[in-house]
């Protein structure tokens, strides 16, 4: 049975590496210049979702675990951050830290239960647990139910950078995004990442070599949860509210769509996927097309025809191969 992670590029020749470096520089430049051409709040939203998708992809693309409950970490962190910043007057950086810590905690709890099952069971278990969290948020007092925590002050970063300026806010979000991606990159290219890879390849062999597979999976799960939380926490500061939308299972589905569209197991794919989904959502809002139908169709078409996603298809395409990107199979 072909693994969901089969489309991961395994090796890159010299050209591919430099092409990738080139893309990276151009991409960075574009991101730095973007607010001069696009609406900043839109870009910030895009970056938050891109980081969320990258974090999700860390789990799916590199350990083969499909979580259907990542909204819990994204939306949960948003609540924690919004609450501490608004009610306790925390500065933004501290609020974000609280959000990440909260998401990490949720990741430990959910991961502890969920990693007991694999494959689609894992997906169903995470879905159920996140639904539980959704009901918790709905009923808990501090989330203010369907109103959400509103009017969260953006405040001053480190006490002196005024985040109410959308330029400042944008570069802060960009900074967080880049740091997040760097963390993910380091994580998957580390000794730990190597063990993750071997577990994905042959789990019982990894056990027989003495690795407590569950702990490694949990490690990856928690790391992914923490980064998803980082994305959610920043989003709460950007939009100045945290609401139920971000903890629904539809949100968990959305991040899967972003990853799938961008390319499972590619480092930058989710950025493209997130860009596409966010743009599409915005566009559909003012069009005649009903959003869910289009999203659903995109999902189906993607699974049937472009399983590798935008970046994956590019790597596997004629040009990609010419440039030296190599695929398994």
């Amino acid at each position: 049975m072909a693994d969901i992670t089969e489309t991961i590029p395994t090796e890159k020749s010299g050209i591919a590496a430099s092409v990738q470096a080139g893309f990276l520089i151009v991409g960075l430049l574009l991101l730095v210049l973007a607010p001069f051409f696009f609406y900043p709040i839109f870009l910030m939203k895009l970056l938050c979702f891109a980081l969320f998708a990258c974090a999700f992809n860390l789990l799916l693309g590199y350990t083969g675990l499909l979580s259907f409950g990542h909204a819990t970490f994204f939306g949960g962190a948003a609540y924690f951050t919004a609450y501490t910043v608004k009610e306790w007057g925390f500065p933004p950086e501290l609020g974000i830290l609280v959000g990440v810590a909260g998401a990490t905690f949720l990741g430990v709890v959910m991961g502890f239960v969920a990693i007991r099952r694999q494959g689609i069971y894992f997906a169903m278990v995470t879905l159920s647990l996140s639904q539980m969290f959704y009901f918790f948020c709905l009923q808990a007092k501090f989330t203010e139910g369907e109103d959400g925590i509103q009017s969260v002050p953006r405040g001053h970063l480190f006490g002196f950078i005024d985040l109410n300026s959308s330029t400042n806010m944008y570069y802060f979000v960009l900074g967080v995004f880049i740091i997040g991606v760097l963390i993910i990159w380091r994580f998957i290219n580390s000794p730990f990442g190597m063990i993750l890879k071997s577990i994905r390849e042959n789990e019982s062999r990894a056990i027989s070599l003495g690795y407590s597979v569950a702990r490694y999976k949990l490690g990856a799960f928690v790391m992914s949860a923490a980064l998803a939380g980082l994305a959610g926490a920043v989003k709460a500061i950007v939009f100045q509210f945290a609401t139920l939308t971000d903890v629904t299972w539809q949100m968990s589905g959305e991040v899967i769509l972003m990853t799938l569209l961008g390319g499972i197991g590619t480092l930058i794919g989710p950025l493209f996927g997130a860009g596409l989904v966010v743009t599409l959502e915005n566009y559909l809002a003012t069009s005649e097309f009903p959003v869910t139908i289009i999203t659903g169709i995109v999902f189906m078409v993607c699974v049937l025809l472009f399983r590798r996603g935008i970046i994956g298809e590019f790597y596997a395409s004629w040009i990609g191969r010419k440039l030296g990107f190599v695929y398994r199979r």
Partner: protein
Amino acid sequence: MTMIFGIPVQALLGQLLIGLINGSFYALLSLGLAIIFGLLRVINFAHGALYMLGAFVAYLLLAYAGIGYWPSLILAPIIVGLLGAVVERLFLRRLYDLDPLYGLLFTFGMALTIEGTFRYLYGSSGQPYATPPALAGGANLGFMFLPIYRGWVVVMSLIICVGTWLLIEKTKLGAYLRAATENTILVQAFGVNVPVLLTLTYALGAAIAAFAGVLAAPIYQVSPLMGSNIIIVVFAVVVVGGMGSIMGAIITGYLLGIAEGLTKVFYPEASNIVIFVIMAIVLLIRPAGLFGRDA
């Protein structure tokens, strides 16, 4: 009046019965999921949408063709089953060689599309569907007033569950199905047309879901949302039961329906999460589920 935990026994009996009725829907849906998963290795996220479709087909048949409940009980499953067959032939078939997660994602997209379409066309507040006159009214059981229709639901779901179980455990067709679950290629090499079998299986699963939908129409609002509300719970049911056995899926469905019903009496705030809590506990104690075999 005798009391248990401060609740009159009479009320408790009533609640047990009601739990059983809810369990009927869980059992029917998890049964379909288990059959489809067993053979196709696809977690059918669209199962809730098919259930909704069953109810809607019944509604549409009534609204546009004047076809009532009884014919719909047969027609709607057939129509939805056919639709399932088409989906299997055209799309799902292409995903069998891939990681099962793709099947999950595809059917997720399918669920969104179906649900979105009906929401677009019919709004979300739901459509009316009356109880068939022959089953209207209720019976006073002494401890509660039982609408006759609800009794009918329990009976029908039991018949379908047991019938399906017999079909799969006791017939030649069932033997093919079980064998194909283990080794599709070999069964095919023996001269069995497995592709057709796969199509039939998905169609059967879809038809059972649609049947549940028609059963539900007179009780719940016929709404595009009725499927997505129930499917996540049914997933949890399936995890608790473990998808190893058909019987397991059925029994777990009824049991959890009852567990949920009782929670509504003792601690109603938790009734929507009680199944998830049970799921978490079962996973911690018996990761393979109550009736599951370890992979």
